[in-house]
């Protein structure tokens, strides 16, 4: 726990920026580090505004704080996660997800940005151009849902956790996220009927994705903007448990801090670690470390 934060992370990635990099190096490195397990979590729900990006950013920050190396992949054309934690504007980045998905795998090292507003968290930027990427993927690759999985395969064993922020749609970008992921979290806006409608469709897509990614495991639904006192929130909680089957015990409360942190380009813990919402994300990170048996340094947490 007191190992310097991010140390392994930087060591693990240093080869990526080697000018002599070639595909071969990935593999030689992987055999070295084969002990390290990488968990890839897609955070997805095609209902907009249900807390996908907030969850990705703060989960990333909390996991990094626990000493894990974390990569955020922003697959949303709105690129809000990138605008929040990226030091560059997505339009200034030469290789974003949009380019990565359509180019050769050699571009991968150029796509990863280690320097972000959150220490220990790397980023593959999103881009407005992802909208077009989605259209082009259909035309240029034979298995358009599996491009992301192929492109990030070399990162297995390098990061502890890869978090994918999905766009609010069920189209090709989301399929790519689900095909590349080992785990899935579905944030649901607590108290919203609309949010519940979408879940059924998402679960249908997940079933289809299992044909190409049978190992995809649903961690559960995460209630966001939850307010115990409201009747609807309690009702939705019951409905979500019933429909999705798995409900994460931790509930993320409503908080003005969430919007403040987006403006401040900080994580919630950096803005105010004592706030309830920051503490819940911390608990969520701890729960995942335990549930997914993530190792920090040499010992399980």
């Amino acid at each position, binding site marked *: 726990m007191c190992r310097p934060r991010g140390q392994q992370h930087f060591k693990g990635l240093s080869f990526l920026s080697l000018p002599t990099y070639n595909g071969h190096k990935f593999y030689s490195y992987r055999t070295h580090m084969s002990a390290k397990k990488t968990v890839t979590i897609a955070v997805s729900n095609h209902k907009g505004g249900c807390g996908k990006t907030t969850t990705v950013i703060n989960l990333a920050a909390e996991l990094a704080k626990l000493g894990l190396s974390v990569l955020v992949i922003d697959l949303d054309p709105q690129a809000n996660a990138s*605008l929040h934690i990226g030091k560059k*504007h997505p*339009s200034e980045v030469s290789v974003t997800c949009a380019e990565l998905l359509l180019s050769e795998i050699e571009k991968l090292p150029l796509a990863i940005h280690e320097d972000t507003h959150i220490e220990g968290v790397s980023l593959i930027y999103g881009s*407005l151009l992802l909208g077009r990427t989605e259209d082009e993927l259909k035309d240029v690759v034979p298995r358009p849902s599996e491009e992301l999985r192929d492109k990030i395969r070399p990162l297995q064993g390098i990061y502890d956790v890869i978090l994918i922020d999905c766009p609010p749609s069920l189209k090709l970008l989301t399929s790519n996220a689900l095909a590349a992921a080992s785990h899935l979290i579905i944030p649901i806006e607590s108290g919203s009927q609309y949010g519940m409608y979408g879940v059924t469709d998402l679960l249908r897509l997940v079933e289809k994705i299992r044909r190409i990614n049978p190992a995809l495991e649903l961690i559960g639904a995460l209630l966001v903007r939850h307010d115990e006192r409201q009747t609807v929130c309690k009702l939705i909680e019951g409905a979500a448990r019933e429909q999705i089957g798995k409900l994460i015990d931790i509930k993320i409360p409503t908080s003005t801090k969430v919007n*403040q942190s987006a*403006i*401040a380009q900080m994580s919630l813990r950096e803005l105010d670690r004592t706030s309830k919402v920051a503490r819940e994300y911390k608990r969520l990170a701890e729960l995942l470390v335990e549930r997914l048996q993530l190792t920090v340094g040499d010992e399980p947490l």
Partner: protein
Amino acid sequence: MKKDLKGMLQSKLQQNNLRHTASGQEVEFAEGREYRLVPVDSIEANPYQPRKVFPQDELDKLAASIAEIGLLEPILLRKAGDGYQIAAGERRWRAHKLLHKNTVEAIVTNISDSDMAVFALAENVDREDLSDYEISLAIRQIEGLFPTKKKLAESLGLVREDMYRYFAFNELPDFILADLEANPRLLSRSAANDLKKVLKDHKDSPYLDQVSAEAWDLLVAKELDQTKLADFIKRKIKEVANNIDTDVQMAQYFFRDGKKVGNISSTNHHFTIKLSAKLLDEVQEKRLKDFIEQMLADTAL
């Protein structure tokens, strides 16, 4: 502390929004296609249309067919000012005008200048009645719309070599181009390319102008096939250069029914009378020979 936060958020919000606005990201917008009836007089021809003349009998036939069974396929238009421009279907539009129809069925869509040019050409390139020379003029006209010649060739679906054959017309001497203006079918693109090459190879020869003019006259007079034009010039230049007969002077051409049938030329070594074979019958040939014999006999005296 609370006040500080407010101030920080305020300036940060301003910065963030400014940065995003300044990034000038392109937003994709596909207007799509619209099927509608468009007033015939609100339409103008494709400005990139290579064909200047539309044979009346063909238009009459098309008009008759449209009058009988209607328009099978709507024409393709783009918006231009208050009206429309034709991307494809100028004949059909002209036929509608012949029929005094008020409207024509059309697909209206957004088309770039370079696509307009390609549409106009593509519609014509495949038709046999547009000559290579006309196509070459059309290609020259739209050349500037494409960043590279490669892109131009790709857009037109031409292999590069073939495109350069079209470009060869542009390098031919003015007297040839003048004849091509009047009769564009005189020369195919490969004959033009061969001719261009031979003219370039012999550009230092003092006989080039004279020999190429002679060859061209023969071609115009249909006495020389266009596929043999370049070889003819090459051979002739060699012949002339090897011959001591340096001062060839074309004295006179013979015509019958407006067609060139022979010539008289003289050098300091020879006086040549040349006539097409079988132009004269046996009796006439005999008379000519006798006449020359007679003249030679006279000079001997």
